[in-house]
């Protein structure tokens, strides 16, 4: 057995070393750096009170702690304890604590049902069966060249940084499964390759939630919604995003033609 190097002059030399260990690994390193020191710096700057009101927005006060929490660099309990210490009344940070709890919830679900990691927990509620969905992710999605500008922007961020906002994850998952009719498993696998926080429990079960195999109805979105939450960050003009420029009623008919009546 070979003992590997742990002492490096610079991040660049560490990166070169990892490349030699894993010549098969694709892409470039992320600007987001690992380690406990970086985790503590990020933790010190969280704003759990403002979180509740702003978390759905692309530039909201989200924490970006997920890569550190996923790797156990910070425990969920430690993050909660720190957030409690920053507020007078725990009720002020209800939403934040609840979102942390989602991670705990997904972990418990997977512990109880390891087979749900890759199998549909329930049938799709889209008027389609699993066999109607493609097995593989289309190349244009992988390359971020779908022609729908906001989707391409989210993909680019995912691939270059390994982190995207929760709302962007929901949009991309919905786009893959419902707009392109691809199996959630293909999308989940793709996210796991790239997300620094890529976690089978949170990721795969969230994909199932969007797909409707672990929820009562499929999650869909339209351009108006992307514009509301990300309009100041990316191009959400109708011309550049024609596919998404529709009302929810129109989308439901287009995406789920077998379903009559409300979802």
């Amino acid at each position: 057995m070979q003992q590997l190097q742990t002492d490096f002059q610079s991040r660049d030399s560490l990166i070169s070393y990892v490349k030699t260990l894993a010549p098969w690994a694709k892409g470039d390193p992320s600007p987001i750096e690992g380690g406990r020191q970086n985790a503590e710096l990020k933790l010190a700057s969280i704003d759990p009170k403002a979180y509740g009101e702003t978390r759905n927005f692309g530039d909201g006060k989200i924490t970006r702690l997920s890569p550190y929490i996923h790797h156990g660099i910070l425990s969920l309990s430690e993050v909660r304890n720190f957030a409690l210490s920053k507020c007078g009344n725990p009720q002020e940070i209800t939403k934040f604590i609840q979102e942390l709890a989602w991670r705990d919830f997904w972990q418990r679900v997977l512990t109880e049902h390891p087979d749900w990691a890759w199998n549909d927990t329930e049938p799709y509620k889209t008027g389609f069966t699993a066999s109607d969905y493609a097995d593989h992710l289309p190349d244009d999605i992988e390359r971020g060249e779908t022609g729908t500008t906001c989707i391409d922007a989210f993909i680019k961020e995912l691939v270059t940084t390994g982190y995207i906002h929760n709302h962007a994850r929901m949009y991309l998952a919905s786009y893959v499964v419902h707009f392109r009719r691809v199996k959630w498993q293909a999308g989940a696998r793709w996210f796991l390759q790239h997300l620094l926080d890529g976690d089978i429990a949170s990721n795969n079960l969230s994909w199932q939630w969007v797909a409707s195999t672990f929820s009562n109805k499929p999650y869909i979105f339209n351009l108006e919604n992307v514009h509301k939450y990300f309009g100041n960050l990316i191009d959400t003009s109708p011309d550049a995003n024609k596919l998404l420029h529709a009302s929810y009623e129109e989308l439901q008919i287009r995406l789920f033609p077998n379903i009559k009546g409300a979802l």
Partner: protein
Amino acid sequence: MNQPLIWLHEEALRVTHPVFRAAPEGTRAIYVWDDEYLSQLDYSLKRLVFMYETLCELPVEILRGDTVSIIKQIAPSILYIPATTKPHITSTMSKIKSVANVEVIPDENFVTITKAADIRRFFPYWNMAQKTAFQKNGGIDA
């Protein structure tokens, strides 16, 4: 004489993880760079670099090879492993159990739930979880 050992995997990369308290002080800790395991996961370089730079800050030896063979070779008196839900790691753990005496150590609890939660939907879970989610250490005295 055989010594205890900690096998750290990528979901428990901190020295304050309970696995370090469970093991006797000064227990050797290793992370195994297992080429087959990692290439199966097919992670992008971003993920590997993030993990590696985190490992470099920890008091842990990084050994390259097949996980089960390395543990067999070291032959620890007892092997401490942080709990995880990750299927790739749990399947390696099952193999390790045939070559070593294993103790799996869970991470700190986020909440204290006594009754089995209904795990099909979030809100039945949350109704139970919220009783301790707003307490330091999830209601447990650290």
